[in-house]
């Protein structure tokens, strides 16, 4: 399985507008809620709830908001890019530019942890981070991820 098995073109946003946490989560949640047929506000609430236990802004400009959602059939992902950066309560107090969102069902059997580990790994590469920030649209993002997307 690969990251691109779970990331859809529709859930990629290359020009996030918000500058704060809640606004960005709303932007990211909207397309994900559409393709999973769930309530966007509920998705935001789940993500905010998780953020209140500890920020997923892990520093280095990266945020990986995630959460478990009741009634979800499969794991879904989203990607968002912000040129100006977002105040995401990151551990290094710096703005966050690259977002990977993971939403999983409540009884997920560990797939979410594998995906999280994969994403964390590719985001450690500065070259990848620089490259993805040059993406103009969803197709670019998919192409850039494809280059590093290995089976797991």
């Amino acid at each position, binding site marked *: 399985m690969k990251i691109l098995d779970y990331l859809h073109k529709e859930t990629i946003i290359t020009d996030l507008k918000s500058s704060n*946490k809640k606004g960005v989560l709303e932007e990211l949640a909207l397309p994900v809620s559409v393709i999973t047929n769930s309530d966007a506000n509920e998705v935001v609430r789940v993500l*905010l709830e998780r953020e209140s236990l500890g920020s997923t802004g892990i520093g280095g400009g990266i945020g990986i908001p995630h959460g478990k959602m009741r009634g979800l059939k499969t794991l879904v992902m989203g990607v968002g890019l912000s040129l100006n950066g977002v105040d995401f309560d990151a551990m290094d107090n710096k703005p966050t530019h690259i977002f990977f969102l993971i939403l999983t069902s409540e009884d997920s059997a560990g797939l979410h942890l594998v995906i999280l580990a994969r994403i964390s790994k590719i985001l450690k590469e500065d070259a990848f981070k620089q490259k993805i920030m040059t993406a103009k649209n969803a197709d670019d993002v998919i192409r850039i991820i494809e280059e590093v997307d290995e089976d797991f």
Partner: protein
Amino acid sequence: MKIIIVGSGQVGFNIASRLAHEGKDVVVVDTDVDAIANVSEKIDVETLIGSGSSPVVLEKAGIKGAEILLAVTNSDEINLVACLVADILSPATKKIARIRKGDYDDYHKTFQEGIPHIDTVINPDIEVVKAIELFMSVPGALDIGDFAEGRLKFVGIRMDKDTRLSDTRLSDLPNKIGDPILIAALVREGKMIIPGGDDRMYPGDLVYFVSEKRGLENILTAFDKHVRPVKRVMIVGGGEIGLRLARSLEEKSIYTKLIERSPERCAVIADIMDKVVVIQGDGSDQGLLFEENIREMDVVVSLTNDEETNILVSLLAKRMGTRQVITKLNKFGYLSLMSTIGLEQVVSPRLSAINSILQHIRRGKVLSARTLVDEKAELLEAVALETSDIVGKPLRQTGMPKGALVIGIIRKDEIMIPSGSSVIEPNDRIIIFARRQVVSKIEKLLTVKLEYF
């Protein structure tokens, strides 16, 4: 984290200043120009003049980007409408509202589940009544916290002269008291000490300790505080809190007299209450108190809306021989003076409101929070979550900052008073005592790692 606070009274002001200190993004909204001027003069937050119930104002305050809306004006109605408007404009914003009127009591849940989807309804009056009843159960306590459904008690008590325990070294305590006790802090001449085994307790010290409920009576006896059953109570002031307390005492079949100045209000209360004796009159009238046998009362509770009257009634009652007096006070400025004039059992609706709100603002899975000792310290009750730094290793290796102490662990039905070698397991409930300066470090210890879903 962005937070909008509607209402800049004492509660709004206090919360805003705490959050500003912690570097959070705060907007305070109020119609009162002077109150807003006071806020912007004293604290580093954004301010906005206007009604928090207005969609235009909330929009301008940035409700769409706000994680929390706090509606704490003096009006229940404005607080409700502010939440309603926020629910329309920004449904995912967490809404916390103060709603005091008893008429709404049965609808708190409805407000949560249905429109306007208020995540937390805070009623400080209910908390105050709880606090008064806790005071009644622990004579001499200045502060009482109940944990694990009351099985674990956190108590602040004044050390009297010539008691069995005065001048005792803490490491010798187990020889003098059989029941498990942990001294969390001593306050001596206004300074807080987090003691070690070599420290001693002296007369005049304010001693904060934790114990299990079943050992509490013995411990209190060791401090020369004797628990006696409360049979007769006098309430002065028949407002919301007075009425709530009277109701609760009636249910427990405690003989209760209630003095209220307004004849109309007396009629209302007499109509609701069955056995409570309602007396119309001025509670600060010494003659009336004498006539109503104040000296035979076990407890006198002063709950009028006038701070000075409450202080006066309590002082009078004490001088006339009442065993225990409890005073309601709102002005924070007065709180620290109370022990100097001998009134130690004080309740404050505003402080209760602040405590209830704190819980929802703290990071990690915090179940309750309260501020202690003139806001020098906080008591946090939280769930220890998987992947957080506090679980899985002996406490002394968790990086717990100096000035903080885990004082209780609740694991299913088991209650533990921990030592440095105790290990916290995921999903334990823990109680932490922390100096205010290290609270943000504690929050960090409680937060989860990225892997937590």
